[in-house]
């Protein structure tokens, strides 16, 4: 066994705990997770059955964490994990899974398969089998300050732009404010309007906030690759900046995996509780709404539907908040089939979008979304994840569908009540 | 305990009701009787059907009785316990029920015959009868 294979197996070994053991003990191979998977739905290829994607983790558990498995090993019935095993799993663990979490919701015995995919990726990445694009992004983020490389100049420019547009002061590295805003690279590069939108809303609501010049990037490719060392390294930057600035809360932006990385994984990656709280931007907006600090006037007359980002709704618990906000500004709000907790993935989350090898799978998966959108025929799709936004926009264009995509924060800012 | 709230009277009723549920065996038996009656009429052949050979409950008995009815001849034998021999409303079809000295049923038959075998005087008994009669006459003569 080569050193990297051993490193991979060891990483899997580190991941086995009571939940994993109970999940594998409980699986009866009923196959119901298959229908929950967007890639199986659109290809009908049984290899994409979610539970099959965590087979290596299952083998490590059986071989090393059960007495009966140990006995089996002793009599030579064990099944050692090889380089080929890792290679074979690559396309199942990375290409055909967006960690959307639908399988976790339907498993009749309650297996959190998505969590186990996350654990599988620990082994895969340690064994050197993460997709090259994601490794590249990790390198860029490590040496620079975002997965797209060094975005220092870009964010400075975008903030300046926003100040000019809104006439509201936005300060970098201002200590003692209530909130630290971090952004996803996608927003900085593609949808910078969100900065101005936040500035306007916060200004009206009297929220004090800042951006850290050292740590403005919210995304964490370490979580997508599934490598806890890389993820820890990246999340530490934000934690350190927030604690240095002594903010009360950090706002997780409209980005799915960033919310998972910062709010739910981060404290466990660094092994301690934060000195601040994490709140999602939409949670905050809904809270401001409830407090009467977010008021809108007028409504969009377009037929609007909402796309739930998996990591924020299904795996993040933010479900009613965006709908309450959207109802303030949308006159003609319609839901797609399965909307809410069981919404289908945009087709490219969990690192699939960056993975060129997975292109055809992503395109196939989008066909499901396409059919759902066609049924509703909206003028506009609103979402709360910049990467979903990006994916939908491109896929709609590829499929010649003339539907606008918008971020929810931006949309709320658009209908902010003018102060008299 | 199971159903402990049930009253005793209900239980007895239930027990009887259960014991008397028809098994559905009465009708096939009656078809057999009809066939046997044909044999009797055409060939003079006698048939005996053993009601003890199949599950036969009170409910079945009732149905049997309802269809066969009660006929002209009704004989009670006293041969080591009673035997009831009764012609049904269907001439040629007889019910023969044997009881022991304590009145418990021993066996139950339907006999399709001109006259059931058991009613006929047995020659062996007649032999003894002749002896007995002769003896009694002799006694009377001797006494006179």
């Amino acid at each position: 066994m080569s050193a990297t294979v051993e490193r991979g197996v060891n990483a899997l070994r580190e991941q086995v705990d009571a939940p994993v053991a109970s999940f594998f003990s409980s699986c009866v191979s009923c196959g119901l997770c298959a229908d929950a998977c967007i890639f199986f739905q659109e290809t009908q290829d049984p290899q994409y059955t979610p539970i099959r994607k965590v087979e290596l983790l299952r083998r490590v558990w059986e071989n090393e964490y059960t007495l009966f498995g140990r006995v089996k090993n002793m009599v030579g019935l064990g099944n050692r994990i090889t380089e080929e095993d890792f290679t074979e799993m690559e396309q199942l663990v990375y290409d055909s899974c967006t960690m959307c979490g639908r399988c976790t919701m339907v498993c009749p015995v309650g297996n959190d398969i998505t969590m186990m995919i996350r654990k599988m990726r620990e082994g895969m990445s340690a064994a050197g089998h993460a997709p090259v694009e994601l490794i590249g992004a990790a390198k860029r983020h490590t040496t620079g300050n975002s997965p797209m490389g060094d975005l220092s100049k870009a964010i400075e420019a975008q903030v300046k732009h926003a100040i000019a547009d809104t006439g509201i002061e936005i300060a970098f590295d201002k200590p003692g404010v209530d909130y630290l805003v971090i952004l996803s690279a996608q927003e900085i590069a593609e949808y910078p309007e969100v900065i101005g939108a936040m500035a306007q809303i916060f200004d009206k609501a009297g929220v004090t906030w800042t951006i850290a010049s050292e740590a403005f990037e919210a995304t964490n490719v370490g979580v997508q690759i599934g490598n806890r060392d890389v993820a820890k390294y990246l999340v530490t930057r934000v934690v350190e900046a927030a604690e240095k600035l002594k903010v009360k809360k950090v706002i997780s932006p409209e980005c799915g995996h960033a919310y998972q990385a910062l709010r739910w994984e981060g404290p466990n990656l660094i092994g301690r509780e934060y000195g601040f709280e994490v709140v999602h931007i939409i949670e905050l907006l809904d809270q401001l709404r409830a407090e009467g600090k977010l008021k809108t006037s007028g409504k969009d007359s377009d037929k609007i539907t909402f796309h739930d980002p998996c990591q924020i709704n299904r795996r993040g618990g933010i479900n009613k908040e965006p709908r309450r906000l959207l109802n303030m500004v949308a006159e003609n709000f319609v839901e797609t089939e399965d909307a809410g907790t069981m919404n289908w993935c945009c087709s490219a989350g969990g690192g699939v979008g960056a993975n060129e090898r997975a292109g055809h799978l992503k395109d196939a998966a989008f066909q499901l979304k396409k059919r759902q959108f066609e049924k509703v025929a909206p003028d506009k799709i609103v979402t709360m994840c910049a990467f979903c936004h990006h994916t939908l926009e491109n896929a709609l264009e590829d499929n010649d569908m003339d539907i606008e995509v918008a971020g929810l924060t931006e949309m709320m800012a658009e209908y902010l009540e003018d102060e008299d | 305990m199971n159903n402990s709230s049930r009253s005793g009277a209900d239980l007895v009723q239930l027990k009887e009701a259960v014991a008397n549920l028809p098994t559905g065996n009465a009708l096939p038996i009656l078809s057999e009787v009809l066939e046997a009656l044909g044999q009797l009429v055409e060939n003079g052949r006698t048939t005996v059907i053993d009601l003890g050979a199949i599950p036969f409950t009170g409910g079945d008995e009732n149905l049997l009785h309802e269809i066969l009815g009660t006929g002209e001849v009704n004989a009670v034998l006293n041969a080591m316990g009673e035997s009831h021999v009764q012609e049904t409303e269907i001439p040629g079809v007889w019910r023969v029920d044997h009881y022991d000295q304590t009145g418990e049923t021993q066996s139950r038959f339907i006999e399709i015959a001109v006259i059931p075998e058991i009613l006929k005087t047995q020659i062996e008994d007649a032999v003894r009868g002749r002896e007995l009669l002769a003896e009694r006459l002799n006694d009377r003569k001797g006494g006179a």
Partner: protein
Amino acid sequence: MNNPNFDLLMFARGPLFDIALLVFVAGVLIRVVEILILGRKKDFSKAKGQPVQQGIKTIFTRTFPRPGAIKANPITIVGGYVFHIGFFIAFLLFVPHIALIEELTGLSWPGVGRVVIEGATVLAVIAGLALLYTRWKDPVRRKLTTWVDYLVLILSLLPLITGYVAVNKLFGDPTFMMALHVLSVDILMIVFPFTKLMHAFTFAMARYYNGSIQGRKGAES
């Protein structure tokens, strides 16, 4: 002279049952203790929802499929329901079985009549055969299924079939069929801890963990 059928029944009720009980109880405990002691790391993230409550709730709510699931997998879900419910009616509400459990544990409850038991048995067997069919025919399940899965499903059906045959005296010597029935249960108990039959115990743990992981985040489960 011996009655070989009765001897087999006594073997199945006696020494083999003892062995089966030992393997079953010890095996199940080994596996459950093994899982529980393994534990999980403390979660440092600040809980938004209520992980413990939602974990417990999910043990029950996950019993019901999500809307649309039945339409997509009618045989697996309906068959799964009928099989489980039928199996447990026949297992837990047939009075001779209650007598067995009472003998072992001192616990007892009212049973039901033969019509219900036999109806449940027949339905469970039909459902089990349907599950076997879909395992064999459906490409997803076929790919997932190992020979042990087939074995386990067949072994789960045998007590139902042999019990029905023995009680109804369909064929064979009834004592022999009763012996086969008890034997089939002994075998099922012996393979139990080594196979996916363990889900009968670990499903509650799995559902709890699922619910508590989701519940911590305030997400549904």
